[in-house]
C-alpha cells in the first residue's frame, strides 16, 4: 500500500507541481494517475521512489515513510518502467533485465537465470537474450522494460506512460498482456498516462489530476464514467462516456431470442422458407457455432441451390454472458443483419439480440448504482 499524506512539491521559483495530495494506492491493484500534461501526475509518481524529493507532507510505502530509507535501497525495491523502456543501449537484453539483481549483488548466474525466466514470462523468445535494445522493435523494448522492472520481484511497480511510445495495435496487445500478467502477479501498480481510455481500460482505480497538481477525482473507472466529480473530469472522459461506460456492464441478464438458422450445404429454398418474410438467416456449423449471415433477398439466390460459405457475411464479434454490453451493442451495430450473436462457452449459438433490444434493455437498468470505492 502506498499512501500520500498532504504531499506538496514546490519548485524553487514557486511553481507548485503537486498540491496537498492525499491518496491511497491499495495493494495488489492497478491505480492509474491520469490527467493533462503539467498536472503533476508524473511528478507524483516520481515522488514515490524519490526520483524527485517532496517539499512537504509524507509518502508511506507499507507504512514506512519513504524518506526514512536510503533512496538507492528504496528504488531497488520498487519496479520502474518508463516510456521508451529506458533500456541501456550498451547492454544486451539479458543484462538489461538482470540489472537490479546485479545491483543487489546476486551472483551472475542466478541473476541471468532469473532474467531468462522473465523474458519468457513477458513473451520474448530466448534468442533475444544476446541482442541489444536497438535490434528490437518498440513493443519488444517495452516488454524488456517490464521484465527488467519485475526482475527482483518487487511488490510495487511504478509505470510512467509505459505504452505511449508504440503504435495503437501494439499498444492494445501490450495492454492485454499487461493485464494478464497482473492477474498472475497481483503487484501494487501505479501507472501514469495522459490517455483516459488507457486509464479506464487498465485501472482498478483511476486518479484524475487537474492543472496545478490537484486531485480531481479518485474512483473506479465505472464510477468515473458514470459520475464525473466535476466539469473538468467530465471534459476529460469525453462526450461518449455513456457508450464507454457499457464496458463495465455485463450481458449477464440480457434476454436473447432465436433467429432463423441454416447450415452449409442446406438448400437455399429451405432457408428462404425458414425466414418467411425476413431477409437474414444465420448459418451454423455442425456444432451450432455461427458461421455467417446469409441474405436470402439477394437477386442471385434463385440461381444458387445450396448455402455456400462464400455467400455468407461476417457475424463479427459474438458475445457470452460475461461479455460487456459495449461488445454486444458494437456487435449489433456492426452486423449486416442488425443482430449481435450470443454464444455459450463452447461457442455454440444461444440467441441473438438487435440494437433496439439492447437499447431497451439498457434503458430498463439502473446503471449508475456502481459501488463506490
Amino acid at each position, binding site marked *: 500500500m502506498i499512501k500520500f499524506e498532504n504531499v506538496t512539491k514546490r519548485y524553487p521559483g514557486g511553481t507548485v507541481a503537486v498540491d496537498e495530495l492525499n491518496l491511497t494506492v491499495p495493494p495488489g491493484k492497478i491505480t492509474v494517475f491520469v490527467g493533462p500534461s503539467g498536472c503533476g501526475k508524473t511528478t507524483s509518481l*516520481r515522488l514515490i*521512489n524519490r*526520483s524527485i524529493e517532496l517539499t512537504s507532507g509524507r509518502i508511506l510505502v507499507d507504512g514506512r515513510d519513504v524518506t526514512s530509507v536510503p533512496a*538507492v*535501497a*528504496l*528504488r*531497488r525495491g520498487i519496479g*520502474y518502467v*518508463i*516510456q*521508451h*523502456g*529506458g*533500456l*541501456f*543501449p*550498451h*547492454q*544486451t537484453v539479458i543484462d538489461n533485465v538482470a*540489472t*537490479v539483481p546485479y*545491483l543487489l549483488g546476486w551472483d551472475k548466474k542466478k541473476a541471468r537465470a532469473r532474467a531468462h525466466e522473465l523474458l519468457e514470462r513477458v513473451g520474448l523468445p530466448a534468442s533475444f537474450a544476446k*541482442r*541489444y535494445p*536497438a*535490434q528490437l522493435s518498440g513493443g519488444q523494448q517495452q516488454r524488456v*522494460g517490464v521484465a*527488467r522492472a519485475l526482475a527482483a520481484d518487487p511488490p510495487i511497480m*511504478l509505470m510512467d506512460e509505459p505504452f505511449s511510445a508504440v503504435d495503437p495495435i501494439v499498444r492494445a496487445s501490450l495492454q492485454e498482456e499487461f493485464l494478464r500478467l497482473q492477474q498472475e502477479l497481483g503487484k501494487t501498480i501505479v501507472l501514469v498516462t495522459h490517455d483516459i481510455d488507457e486509464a479506464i481500460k487498465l485501472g482498478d482505480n483511476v486518479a484524475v489530476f487537474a492543472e496545478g497538481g490537484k486531485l480531481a477525482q479518485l474512483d473506479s473507472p465505472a464510477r468515473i464514467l458514470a459520475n464525473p466529480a466535476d466539469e473538468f473530469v467530465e471534459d476529460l472522459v469525453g462526450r461518449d462516456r455513456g457508450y464507454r461506460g457499457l464496458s463495465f456492464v455485463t450481458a449477464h441478464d440480457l434476454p436473447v431470442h432465436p433467429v432463423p438458422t441454416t447450415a452449409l450445404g442446406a438448400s437455399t429454398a429451405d432457408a428462404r422458407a425458414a425466414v418467411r418474410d425476413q431477409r437474414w438467416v444465420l448459418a451454423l456449423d455442425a456444432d451450432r457455432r455461427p458461421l455467417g449471415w446469409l441474405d436470402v433477398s439477394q437477386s442471385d439466390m434463385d440461381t444458387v441451390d445450396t448455402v455456400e460459405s462464400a455467400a455468407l457475411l461476417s457475424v463479427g464479434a459474438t458475445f457470452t454472458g460475461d461479455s460487456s454490453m459495449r461488445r454486444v451493442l458494437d456487435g449489433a451495430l456492426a452486423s449486416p443483419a442488425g443482430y449481435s450473436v450470443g454464444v455459450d462457452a463452447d461457442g455454440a449459438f444461444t440467441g441473438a439480440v438487435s440494437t433496439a433490444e439492447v437499447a431497451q434493455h439498457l434503458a430498463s437498468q439502473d446503471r449508475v448504482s456502481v459501488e463506490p470505492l
Partner: protein
Amino acid sequence: MRWDWIQNNLENIGELLAFHLYLAVVPVVLGLALALPIGFLAVRWPRLYPPMLATSGVLFSIPSLALFIILPGIIGTQILDPINIVIALTIYAGALLVRPVADGLRSVPDHVRQSATAIGYERWRQVLKVELPIALPFVFAGLRFVTVANISMVSVGALIGIGGLGELFTDGFQRNFVTPIVVGMVLSVALALIADSVIVLIQRVLTPWARAGRSS
C-alpha cells in the same frame, strides 16, 4: 635517398620514433583524464557548458610553438625539458576532448538516465556504468582526431630541440639532406595511421552495441 644512412642510423631512428609516440600519446591520456571530469561538470551544470567551450577554443588557438616557449617561464621548467611538450600537448588534447566528452554525455537519452536512477544506481555507478559507456562513441571520435593531430604537432617541438621524428626534419633541412626528411615523413604518417587503427580497434571491442542497430 641514401639507404645506407637509414641502416647506419636505425637505432637512432627507432629511439626518435619511440620518443615521438611517447610525446604524442601521453598527452592524449592525460588530456582525456582532464576532459572527463570537466566535460562531466559541464553537463551536470549546463551553465558551465558555453564558457567551457569558449575556454577550450581560446586554449587551442594559442600557437603551439609559442606555448612551447612560454610554458617554461610560467611553470618554471627547463626550456629543453620534454615535460614542456607533454604539458603543452596535454592542454591542447584536454581542450579538444572536453567537447566530445560533454557531447557524448549529453547524448545519453533522458529516459535512460531517469530509469538508471529510478532502478537504484548510485550516482557514481550510474556515471561509470551507464552514462560514460554510452558516451564512448563520441569520446572515441575525439580521441582519434586528437591523437592524429598530436602526432603531427609533436614534430613542431623539434624547433626547440624536442620533437621526436621532427628532429629528422630539422636535421635534414639544416644539412640540406633529403633522406632523414623522407624517413621522418613516412614514419609520421605510418605512426598516425597505426595509432588511428589501434584506437578504432579498441573502440570496436568496447562498443559492440554501437554497431548493433545498423546490422539488424
